[in-house]
């Protein structure tokens, strides 16, 4: 039987999620035994089965985390109705979630992150410090190489001007200050983005130089 699991904890939390067993919605009595005294009726309108924890995680990974940390979701405590309103708003803001996914995902999220869920204990830690100086100077040659690479590899999803379409906008975005994460996403892919494993530090530098020139 597929069971809902708690969403994974906050980003960076090492504790594995504990399984939660929901109360059974309906039980079909075995029909092999003769004349059972109790017959449990099948639900009138059962609808599709609830999403598994894996399906929830996959939906969030593919549709949410390209724009924001999943921590945003994991700290909410909302009814299914509130989740539907939020997911609908996010679809309007460019999330690639299908309309048909909104209802089952809302139910699944309300089951784990409903109004009575506990507020997560937020991680306290040192951070990559505040940025006080601009990135290293870029040369026109670097920008030109980055542009050629962008047009060949990135434009299809991120748009010719890098302002985003299927993929996210890359102009004036925080990722420009995070070269390590930038390299990781390009090399390994993320969510709907395919990996570009053949690219290396030189290309990452060129791509960032181009994006910073826009």
């Amino acid at each position, binding site marked *: 039987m597929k069971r809902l699991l708690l969403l994974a904890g906050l980003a960076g939390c090492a504790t594995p999620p504990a399984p939660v067993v929901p109360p059974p919605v309906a039980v079909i009595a075995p029909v092999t035994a003769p004349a059972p005294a109790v017959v449990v009726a099948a639900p009138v309108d059962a609808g599709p089965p609830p999403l598994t924890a894996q399906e929830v995680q996959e939906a969030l990974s593919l549709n949410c985390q390209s724009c924001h940390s999943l921590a945003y979701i994991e700290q909410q405590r909302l009814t299914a109705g509130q989740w539907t309103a939020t997911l609908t708003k996010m679809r309007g803001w460019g999330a690639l979630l299908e309309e048909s996914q909104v209802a089952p995902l809302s139910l699944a999220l309300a089951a784990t992150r409903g109004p009575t869920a506990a507020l997560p204990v937020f991680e306290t*830690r040192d951070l990559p410090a505040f940025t006080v100086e601009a990135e290293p100077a870029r040369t026109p040659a670097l920008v030109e190489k980055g542009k050629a690479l962008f047009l060949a590899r990135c434009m299809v999803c991120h748009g010719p001007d890098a302002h985003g379409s299927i993929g996210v906008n890359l102009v004036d975005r925080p990722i*420009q200050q995070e070269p390590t994460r930038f390299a990781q996403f390009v090399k390994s892919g993320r969510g709907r983005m395919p990996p570009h494993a053949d690219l290396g530090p030189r290309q990452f530098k060129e791509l960032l130089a181009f994006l910073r020139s826009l």
Partner: protein
Amino acid sequence: MVAGRTVAAAPFEVLADTPQQLQTPLDALDALVTPTDRFFVRSHFGAPRLDRQRTLSLEGLVGKPFTLSVAALQKLPQTTVTAVLQCAGNGRAFFTPTIPGVQWQHGAVGQAEWTGVRLSVLVERAKVQAGAAHVHLFGADRAPKPQAPAFVRSIPLEKAMHPDTLIAWKMNGAPLTLEHGAPLRVVVPGWAGDHWLKWVTAIHLAAEEHDGFFVKKGYRIPPTPVPPGTKVPPEQMVPVTVLPVKSILTAPLEGATVKAGQVEVRGVAFSGGAAVRQVEVSVDGGAHWQLAKLEGEPGVGRWQRFKLEVDAPVGKMRVVARATDELGALQPEQGVWNPSGYFWNAWHRVSWSVT
């Protein structure tokens, strides 16, 4: 490779990494000025590219529109204001029924010294035309998807002309960090943080308030309290502006263990509407109150520290604080629920053990 030199940062509570939502722990609020490297960080879409060469344009219903570099702005008369910056959603996590949004508790607030040029100086230089009543504020940050609305804010011209309203380039005496809006941000003392637009690049004078999502739908509150859980259409709400009176206990903190005897209770208190008149502390859950001593210069939208020595016998201490401002507004026992969870200012209650 590291993008730029950085300064060491102390721990924050990380509500999210992308975009960064960093909450200041309560112990860092136990001061008149909050250190920049522990000052909370909040934005809708995260920081744009750091570019200290960005310019500021003043345009719209003005006779002489202009564009100035940061260097040119810095040649104008400079003003420094000490003021509280508090996110409108600070305390959202405490409301019932629960409300979507970043689940801030106490630490989306801080006080800093802000240095810049008065916005009124720039507006006067541009020669306001008849009919201008609002100032639209545009920043360099961009949404992750083109379908998402830009974060644009609007303040009435009257507030823009207030002598404390600044276009700032310094925070606590140092150039703004990218996270706090470099190279330029708006400073609107007394008003909620959504007006303090970071990375500001353009100021547009107009007859009406801006018609974007973050003015017409976001950052609005019912003009009078509604029953918790009520749905209120945005057009029946008004912008969140003046910070309500509030006190926060900063020592001893919740769950602390202290030695029996005289213990100093400390905190900060502020109001966006007026200076703080008094802060009262109760050690019996609010039945009896004692006046705390205030420290620091009083002012609108500026916090003062409060201190009170209390006698702490062995056992459990339950301490509550409440502030009153010079307009007579008293911090309420309960937060006033509203659809987006703004302006939580209920009595701050902590309990600690005395051994």
